[in-house]
């Protein structure tokens, strides 16, 4: 499923990219997403109801069935280039929602410096929700990783799964997308992959309105890209890459606890370099073996695949208590084979 989504998105991106190619210049990228329920069976056998974005509005159960495609958690990744104008529409058809005052949904392009109308926050935009189109035209200084998420009653709606990656790519002078994070040639990559981190407290999924449930976060499920990957044998995300190649990972903190990210080859920490944080290039890239990721943060990192095959690297995140000295909750593993 994960692979299928990625493949589908890659095809879609390629298609859009080709569309833009003839002019080789900035384009308006129209996107529409809907909101749909996803009843997801977790590894412990329990089912958790999520609300997820989907870009396959009305494509699910056929005519007259009234069905929608299930929501995706995380939602569909949106890839645009610097200079493009993203025009992201929220289609509220059949969207599950809370009762007033927290009815409706919005899209907040997290990290995008946009005006109030495009910020998707009903608490500051005069209460506007539902069906809006959100526009953002990132400039040349803004390539990197962002996310979009609902900003209605965020304490619940973000937790429900209404989050998705939003990637802004660099281009060359002709407007062609580059597989390179910054102007530094060391950031050229052969592969890129998104790791979106999130946590799940099932009580937040069933509670609604102004409930004291939302005062106490007790996460039970720990995810990368919507999947539980409790062991290296059953990783949450996996991708095959060639030896000696460069890979860029797009790291997104959509979780609600503290965390530390590492890339391990067995017991050994593989160093990686942070080039972009929160959609802004670091003046001094930082090469590290571990990275604390707080809720809302994004990082764009680059590292090298070793030269001997076969082998595997395990990008992994340890979710921790927000309290200093508190317990670790769980480690979730991704996998890169080569």
């Amino acid at each position, binding site marked *: 499923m994960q692979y299928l989504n990625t493949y589908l998105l890659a095809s879609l991106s390629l298609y859009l990219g080709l569309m833009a190619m003839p002019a080789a210049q900035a384009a308006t990228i129209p996107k529409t997403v809907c909101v749909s329920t996803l009843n997801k069976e977790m590894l412990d056998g329990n089912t958790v109801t999520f609300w997820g974005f989907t870009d396959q509005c009305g494509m699910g159960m056929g005519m007259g069935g009234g069905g929608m495609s299930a929501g995706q958690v995380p939602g569909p990744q949106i890839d645009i280039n610097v200079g493009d104008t993203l025009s992201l529409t929220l289609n509220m058809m059949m969207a599950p929602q809370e009762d007033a005052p927290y009815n409706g949904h919005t899209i907040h392009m997290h990290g995008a410096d946009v005006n109030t109308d495009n910020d998707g926050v009903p608490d500051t935009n005069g209460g506007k929700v539902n069906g809006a189109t959100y526009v953002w035209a990132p400039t040349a200084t803004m390539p990197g990783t962002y996310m979009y998420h609902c900003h209605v009653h965020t*304490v619940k709606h973000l937790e429900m799964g209404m989050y998705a990656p939003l990637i802004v790519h660099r281009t060359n002078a002709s407007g062609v997308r580059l597989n390179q994070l910054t102007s530094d040639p060391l950031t050229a990559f052969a592969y890129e992959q998104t790791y979106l981190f999130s946590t799940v407290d099932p009580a937040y999924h069933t509670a609604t309105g102004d409930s*004291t449930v939302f*005062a106490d976060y007790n996460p039970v499920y720990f995810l990368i890209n919507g999947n539980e990957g409790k062991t290296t044998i059953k990783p949450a995300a996996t991708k095959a890459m060639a030896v000696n190649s460069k890979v860029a990972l797009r790291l997104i903190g959509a979780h609600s606890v503290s965390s530390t990210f590492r890339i391990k080859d067995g017991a050994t920490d593989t160093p990686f370099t942070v080039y972009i944080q929160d959609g802004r290039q670091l003046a001094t890239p930082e090469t590290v073996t571990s990275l604390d990721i*707080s809720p809302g943060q994004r990082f764009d990192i680059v590292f090298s695949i070793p030269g001997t095959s076969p082998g595997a690297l395990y990008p992994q995140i340890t979710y921790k208590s927000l309290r200093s000295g508190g317990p670790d909750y769980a480690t979730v593993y991704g996998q890169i084979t080569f």
Partner: protein
Amino acid sequence: MKEQTWLVLLMALSLAGCGGGSDIGTGTPPSTTYTVSGVITPKIEGVVVSLTSASTANTAMTDVNGVYSFNGIVNDTYTVKPNHAGHTFDPAERINITVNGDVSGVSFTANPATYTISGAISGTLPADRVMVSLTGAGTTVTASAIGGAYSFTGIVNGTPYAVKPSSSAYTFVPAEATNIIANGMDVQGVNFDAKAITSGYSISGRVTQNNTGLPGVIMMLTGAANRVTDADGKYSFDGLANGDYTLTPQQQTGLTITPTSLLKVTINNSNILVNDFTALSSSGTVTRNYTLYIKSGKLIINGNGGTTLDAWGYTDVASGTPKFPGPQLSANAGDTVTVTVVNKHSIPHDFMINGVINGATNDITPILADASRTYRFTASNAGTYLYYDTLNSDINREMGLYGALIVGSADGSPQAWTHPYDFQRIWVVGEMDKPRWNDVANGPNAVTTLAYKPNYFLINGKGGFDGMKDLGTTIAGKVGQTALVRIANGGQFTHSLHFHSNHVTVLAKNGVQESSPKELDVVALRPLETVDVLFYLNQIGNYPMHVHTAQLETANGVYLNGVATLISISPK
């Protein structure tokens, strides 16, 4: 119980009645009387001896030979008991003495009763033992006064004793206590005050500032270990031989102490008093004095989900209620700052500013209830600092004992390092666990610190809708302006502050300038961390700033509260 006592008495009376009847029945003449006598050994004159039966009581007194005698005693069964101050007797009494003829030899051995003499050695006690000697009753014994207390047993009644402490390192006042007499009871409180023996002479005195003693000044004297002036500015070098000495106070940051040195202080068979040293604020250096009173009080969270929390905090008003966060302390880089912390609370507290206060230059031991302490430091480096209480397993801090110290540019101009700004905001964030911590801390039971599930989240002491409106908290200005936002995390949670539609530039962390400033829209602060960011106002509109962490956007679950405020930018 009372009934049983009565029963026993009735039985005794009836038995006595039977005996009497028996006597009458045998026809013994009631007029026949006898003598009961004996001797006290060793012979003591004046011992009172009692002779009692169920129906009669008589007393007699021993003569010069210790002999006593009762005459005219009728036929009966008696108890004989001697009694004399300062003595015990063996046996204490003799019972069942049957008198049906003269009875002699009802004798006793007298033993002098013994008592204790005790007392304490006060003053600066020697680490080793003080020996205390006791002389009297023909002997001298010694005892050790450990921890200042001594005690002698076996003191004979009525005998004068002398008590004398001795030590090679101390003299005592009084040197000796004489004519200590136990008069039928223990003698307590034979106390002595210890004074250290100083061989040689002393150089002592006081350092003052504005006629007030200046504590904490290191005083240096040739050939002697350094001294530090006490709370009243006093110092003393003891045990000095005759000769010439050089006395130098160590200069303190922000102060000039004059004279800088006394090159020749001469001891010639007498002690020297030097009160010449006075301190003045250095030219160009500003001293900023703050007083913080620690008190118990209430923190009110307004709006939906709001509550009133029991809290402990600081106030800068002696008669005031605590403020949350504590009053802001401000200085320019290079200023001297004094903070006097007055503990008006029932438990010990301490005071810490990471990177500013340390044990090498400040006394960082606990401040007991009703005590106070002054911390003096130089605000060397520009930046934002958190002052807080480290004691009580984070309970003191959780209850609200933290605040911000902000250190601006050296000349006080609105400039953050090299970056000019138009206005600044100070955000002190934290959180409180009402049911598990705040509701418990004032009560008799201990807070179970292992569990921490805060349900109120604070920015500048506000955790409700008012945090979005507070003019001291919101970023409100015009396009083109620059705000310096100083953030300090006094809580136990990491706070992940998300700025909508704007990136900020991180200039410093924990008072240390960033060598490579980052532009971020999420600024994460671990507990006790501080961050200084520059906010360029260039996006017209209204935007929230909030912590991007589930429950931290609520007040006890009610959205949108907690650590949140408003960014409001208007056209130029």
